[in-house]
């Protein structure tokens, strides 16, 4: 009846799917629960189809202007749904091998995915907070899913404490913005801060800066920005591996998308403070922290955790580049082109998911430690070869998608003539080659301790793995098609309403 509500269909499909799974679990307590995984997978696909049918370049502001459905949010939602469906494919075999509460796992993944979809298109402080907390709460449960494992429990509790405090900081920041402008809609806040309407307090610069910093801190927790990155390695190590993949890929992408929309809408439209300096410093420290800490890690999940911190550093550098380019060229248009960051996110999702798929497949045979990957090239040439490609991609070496992502980010920085940042980012990429290739070194040049083969090539996980592999190599070799697609979708954030 309400014309815009049909745009919510992808989210509603996911919500309905999660409820249906719980309902089936209640009614038929004796069925083989891993079949519900296929149901969950089906619902992500239906949601994806709905997204495509409803997709358009037009910007829709629905639910009294608090929910923005535009090219940017549709692109992010497509990425999230791809990540979510691939992770469900991983976890079916993983859950089947022995996990309590099988049905709830898939329901929680669907709920979490739904809240991420809401997060990337919410344009109202209240809705942002609600979706943010929804993502967090379902993640806390998923992280602590191995209840008999002390590490998993510890990870869950740590994540919970960090998350609770960061949500408090976020609300504090929101309260400053609301107190200054008297609005909860981010477009109206932007108008007010840009001097279009009368503010409640005339001299607002310092308070707005305080709001910006606090909100940035709240978002920074979700994406693992520098001073708030402490939880990442412990949580990534303790969580069940599919959940680690989910956190590092989906949760982080949703956080980045939210940060992009919020900062580019609220703090760019005639906003007087140049906040890119803060973000510049943070991005440099984040890159160095991630890369330097990753060098000494022996656990591969911890290593990927630190590497994900480094990737956030590159993404933040890209944001600085885009913002700075706007300032230097005096750009005052209505749409922000954020495609470099979205291309980077796509690359990050493909290669990281692939690496995690290999880890899940070989976990039983090798364990999590990098030295125990010794001789993988003889024990399982296929997995070793694929992991090598994903590590190449994560390090950003040419024939892979990781290179394309880095190329666009660095290109944006050169456009904005941020040469120092480019040099530092390149130095960081070189550092990262060491620890990514340490895995490759163990796989190919260290003889195995056992000759045991018997890797469980679970069909579903292998399918997901091949999909990631194909994406990583295909987009890496001929990126034109993908980039045309990205440009055609007009990936921009409208900053003026």
């Amino acid at each position: 009846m309400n014309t815009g509500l049909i745009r919510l269909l992808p989210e509603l499909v996911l919500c309905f799917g999660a409820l249906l799974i719980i309902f089936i679990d209640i009614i038929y307590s004796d069925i083989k629960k891993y079949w519900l995984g296929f149901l969950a997978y089906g619902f992500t696909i239906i949601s994806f189809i709905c997204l495509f049918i409803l997709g358009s370049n037009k910007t829709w502001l629905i639910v009294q202007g608090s929910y923005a459905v535009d090219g940017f949010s549709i692109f992010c939602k497509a990425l999230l749904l791809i990540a979510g469906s691939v992770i469900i494919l991983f976890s079916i075999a993983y859950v089947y091998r022995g996990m309590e509460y099988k049905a709830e796992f898939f329901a929680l993944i669907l709920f979490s995915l739904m809240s991420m979809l809401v997060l990337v298109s919410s344009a109202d402080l209240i809705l942002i907070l609600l979706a943010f907390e929804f993502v967090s709460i379902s993640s806390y449960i998923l992280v602590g899913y191995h209840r008999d494992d002390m590490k998993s429990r510890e990870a869950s509790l740590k994540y919970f404490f960090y998350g609770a405090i960061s949500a408090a900081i976020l609300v504090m920041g929101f309260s400053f913005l609301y107190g200054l402008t008297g609005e909860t809609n981010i477009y109206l806040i932007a108008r007010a801060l840009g001097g279009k309407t009368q503010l409640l307090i005339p001299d607002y610069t310092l308070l707005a800066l305080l709001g910006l910093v606090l909100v940035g801190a709240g978002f920074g927790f979700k994406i693992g920005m520098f001073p708030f990155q402490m939880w990442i390695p412990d949580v990534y190590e303790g969580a069940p591996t599919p959940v680690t993949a989910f956190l590092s890929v989906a949760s982080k992408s949703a956080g980045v998308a939210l940060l992009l929309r919020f900062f580019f809408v609220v703090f760019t439209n005639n906003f007087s403070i140049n906040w890119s300096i803060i973000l510049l410093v943070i991005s440099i420290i984040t890159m160095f922290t991630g890369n330097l800490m990753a060098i000494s890690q022996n656990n591969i999940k911890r290593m990927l955790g630190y590497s994900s911190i480094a990737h956030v550093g590159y993404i933040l550098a890209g944001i600085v580049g885009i913002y700075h380019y706007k300032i230097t060229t005096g750009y005052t248009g209505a749409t922000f082109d954020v495609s470099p960051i979205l291309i980077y996110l796509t690359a990050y999702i493909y290669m990281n998911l692939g690496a995690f798929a290999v880890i899940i497949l070989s976990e039983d045979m090798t364990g999590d430690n990098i030295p125990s990957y010794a001789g993988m090239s003889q024990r399982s040439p296929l997995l070793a070869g694929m992991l090598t490609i994903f590590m190449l991609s994560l390090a950003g070496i040419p024939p892979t998608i990781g290179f394309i992502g880095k190329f666009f980010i660095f290109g944006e920085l050169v456009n904005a003539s941020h040469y120092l940042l480019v040099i530092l980012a390149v130095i960081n990429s070189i550092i990262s080659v060491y620890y990514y290739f340490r895995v490759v070194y163990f796989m190919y040049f260290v003889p195995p301790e056992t000759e045991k083969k018997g890797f469980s090539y679970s069909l579903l996980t292998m399918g997901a793995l091949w999909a990631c592999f194909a994406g990583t190599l295909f987009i890496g070799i001929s990126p034109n098609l993908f980039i045309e697609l990205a440009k055609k979708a007009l990936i921009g954030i409208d900053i003026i309403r």
Partner: protein
Amino acid sequence: MENNYNIVFLFMLAGAAMGLVGMGLATLIRPHRPNELKLDTYECGPKTVGKTWIQYNFRFYTYVLVFLLFDIEAVYLIPWAQAFKHIARHGIGDFIFPEMAGLFIFTEMLVFLLILIIGLIYAWKKGALEWTKDHRKIKRMTGF
């Protein structure tokens, strides 16, 4: 700028005064004849047994969680009812059929309640409402 928080302050002041004035007046005019029974801790009439600083059984927490479900439900129902009264009469702007707005909002609330009820059935079915003495079951329920 008009400071609306003055009203809140006045409200707090009035609230405090209401209690304090009543008790103060009572202190002034009531007879003062204490005995042992009157000074004893009040616990619904009978004499108190044991100390008040006891540990509650941690199994209560599943009940509290289920209770919370319906506590929150009530919190959301009240503002919804207020908004419903207004919207059912006047409709809202972006509806195609303004006269159907009430029905639409009513259905929305039904969906919300349905989700909560699925939650309750889930908790019930998984045995969260049973007071079990089976320790293995307790471990499964609570993880301890």
